[in-house]
C-alpha cells in the first residue's frame, strides 16, 4: 500500500517538476508581456530532441546539454523580436494565434530534420534504482528534482536580490510606470523570452531519460504547464512551481488509482474545477478592473 503510494508520488513529483519549469516559463512571459505563449511546450520538446541530436554527433554530454538549452533560448528571442514585439497592443486571440503559428513552425522543422521517431537519452548517473520503503526511485528523478530546486532558488535570488530581476518584476506590475523610472522594458521582454525558452528546454532535457521524447511531445507538456501556471494563479512564480507539482502528483495518482486511460484528462478536469470555484487560481490575488 505505502510502497504503491510512494511509487506514484515519486513519478508524480518528477513529471511535476517538468510542468513546474514549463509553468515558470509561461509566468515569465505572461508577466513581461501579457502573452500566453502556446509555443512553450515546443521549447520543452526542442530541449530533449536537441540534446539527443547533439550527443549523437559525438559531443560530450555537458556540451550537448548546454547547446540544447542555448538554441531554444535563441529561438525564443527570435520569436519575441520578429513576432511579438511588432504587435504591441494586439488582441489576446491574435497573440495566441501567433504563438500557435510559432509552435507549428518549430514542431514542423524538428519533424522534417530529426524525423518522427521516439528518442531517449542515457540517464545522467546510471539507472540502478534506489529503494525507498519498497518503492523505487530512479537516480534521474533526483537529477530532475535537484536541478529544478536549484533553478527555482536561483530565480528567487534573481528576482528578489538583483536590480535586473527587480526591474523585471516592476515591469510586470506596471509597464508604463517601469518605463518612467528608466527601466528598459524592451530588454525585459527580450530576457523573459530567452529565460522561459531556456527553462522549458532544461525541463525537456532532464525528463527525456525517463519519459523519452519525439517531435510531438510538446503539445501536451505545454498545455499541462499552462494548467499548472493557471492553477497557481497566472503570473505568480511560486504558484507556478507548486501548481506544477500538484498537477504532476494528481495526474500520477489518478493514473494509478483511477484510470490510466484518462490520465491526460485529469489536469484539465482539475483546472475546470479550480476555475469554477477559485477563478483566480489557488495563489492568485484579488484584482480590480480599470474602466
Amino acid at each position, binding site marked *: 500500500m505505502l510502497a504503491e503510494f510512494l511509487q506514484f508520488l515519486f513519478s508524480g513529483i518528477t513529471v511535476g517538476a517538468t510542468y513546474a519549469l514549463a509553468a515558470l516559463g509561461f509566468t515569465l512571459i505572461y508577466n513581461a508581456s501579457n502573452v500566453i505563449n502556446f509555443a512553450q511546450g515546443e521549447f520543452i520538446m526542442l530541449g530533449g530532441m536537441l540534446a539527443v541530436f547533439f550527443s549523437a554527433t559525438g559531443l560530450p554530454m555537458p556540451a550537448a546539454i548546454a547547446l540544447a538549452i542555448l538554441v531554444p533560448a535563441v529561438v525564443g528571442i527570435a520569436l519575441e523580436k520578429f513576432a511579438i514585439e*511588432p504587435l504591441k497592443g494586439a488582441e489576446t486571440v491574435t497573440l495566441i494565434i501567433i504563438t500557435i503559428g510559432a509552435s507549428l513552425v518549430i514542431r514542423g522543422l524538428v519533424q522534417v530534420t530529426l524525423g518522427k521517431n521516439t528518442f531517449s537519452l542515457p540517464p545522467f548517473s546510471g539507472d540502478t534504482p534506489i529503494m525507498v520503503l519498497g518503492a523505487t526511485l530512479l537516480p534521474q528523478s533526483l537529477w530532475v528534482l535537484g536541478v529544478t530546486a536549484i533553478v527555482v532558488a536561483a530565480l528567487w535570488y534573481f528576482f528578489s536580490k538583483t536590480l535586473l530581476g527587480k526591474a523585471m518584476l516592476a515591469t510586470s506590475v506596471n509597464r508604463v510606470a517601469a518605463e518612467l523610472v528608466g527601466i528598459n522594458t524592451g530588454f525585459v521582454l527580450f530576457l523573459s523570452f530567452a529565460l522561459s525558452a531556456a527553462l522549458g528546454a532544461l525541463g525537456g532535457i532532464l525528463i527525456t531519460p525517463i519519459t523519452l521524447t519525439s517531435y510531438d511531445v510538446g503539445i501536451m507538456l505545454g498545455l499541462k504547464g*499552462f494548467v499548472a501556471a493557471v492553477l497557481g494563479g497566472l503570473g505568480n512564480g511560486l504558484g507556478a512551481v507548486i501548481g506544477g507539482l500538484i498537477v504532476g502528483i494528481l495526474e500520477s495518482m489518478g493514473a494509478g488509482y483511477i484510470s490510466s486511460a484518462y490520465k491526460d484528462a485529469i489536469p484539465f478536469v482539475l483546472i475546470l474545477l479550480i476555475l469554477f470555484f477559485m477563478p483566480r487560481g489557488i495563489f492568485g490575488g484579488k484584482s480590480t478592473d480599470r474602466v
Partner: protein
Amino acid sequence: MRKSPFFGLYIVIALLLIIPFIAPNNFYLDLAIRMAINAIIVLGLNLLIGFAGQISLGHAGFLGIGAYASAVLPTHFGWHPLPAMATGAALAAGLAALVARPIFKLKGNYLAMATLGLGIIISIAIRNETNLTGGPDGMPVPVMGLMGFDLSSDKQWYWVIALLLVFSLWASLNMIDSPFGRALRALHGSEVASQVVGVDIVRYKVAIFVLSAAFASIMGSITAHYVGFVTPTFADFFHSIELVTMVVVGGMASIYGSLVGAVLLTALPQALATFEGWETVVFGVILMLCMIFMPKGLVPTLVSKFGRGD
C-alpha cells in the same frame, strides 16, 4: 451612398450557383462543400469570438459531440439520424449551459484555458470509450435519409450545404444589427459600459455560448453524415485551433471575413500537399505572417485600405 451589407450576400449566392457548373470534377465539388461547411462553422464561432469577444479554444469538442451523436445513436441504438442530431445539439447546449456561468466570470486567458480544458476532456473521452466510438480508429456514420430520400451524392449535398450557407449568412447579417447582436458588440467594446446601459452581460454571454455550442454540434452532425466517417481528430485541440485561425485570419467581427478565412484555410492544406513533409512549417509561417502584417485579419485590413469608408 452606403452600400447595403446584403450586397455581398448576392455575390455569394451567384458564386454558389455557378460553382457546380464550372467545377471540373467531384474533387473540386468536394472541396467546395468542405469550404462551405467550414464557413458555416466559422460564422457561428465568429459571433462568439469576434462579436462577443469571448475566446473559445475548445469548439471542436462541440463539433465532436454532434458528429459522434450522429454516428453512435443510429449505429448502436437504431435511432433515426434527425433525432440523433437533435440529441447531440441538446447535449452540447446542455454541457455549454452547465459550464457557461462559472466560465464567463473569467476573462481573456482564463476563459481560453477553461474552454481548452473542456474541449480536451471531450476529445479524450471520445478516444477512450472504444466500445461506443471505435476509439482512435473512428467509426462509420450512416447515410442521412429523409422521408425515403437518401442524401448521398456530392451534387445533392452541395445544394443542401449551399442553402445552409446562404441561410446562415443571411441570419448572421440580420443578427448583428438586432438588439441581441448590438448587445453582444457592446459587451465586446466595454463590459462595464454595457452593464451601465442595462445589458445583462452574463446572460448574453451564456446565451451566445450555448447557441454557438448547439450550432457547432449540428454542423458536426452534418459534416459526419457528409464524410460518412468520424475519427477523434475531428474533436481534438488542433481542430479547435484551425477553426479559431479561420476566424482570426479572415477577420474578427467580419461576417465576410469568416467566409474568406474558411475558404482560404480549407484550400491551403490542398495547396501545400506538394511540399511533402513541410506542410506544417509552411502553414505555421503563413499563419504568423498573416498575423504580423494583418493583425486585424484579411477582410478588415483590405476594406480599410481600399474601401471608401462607407
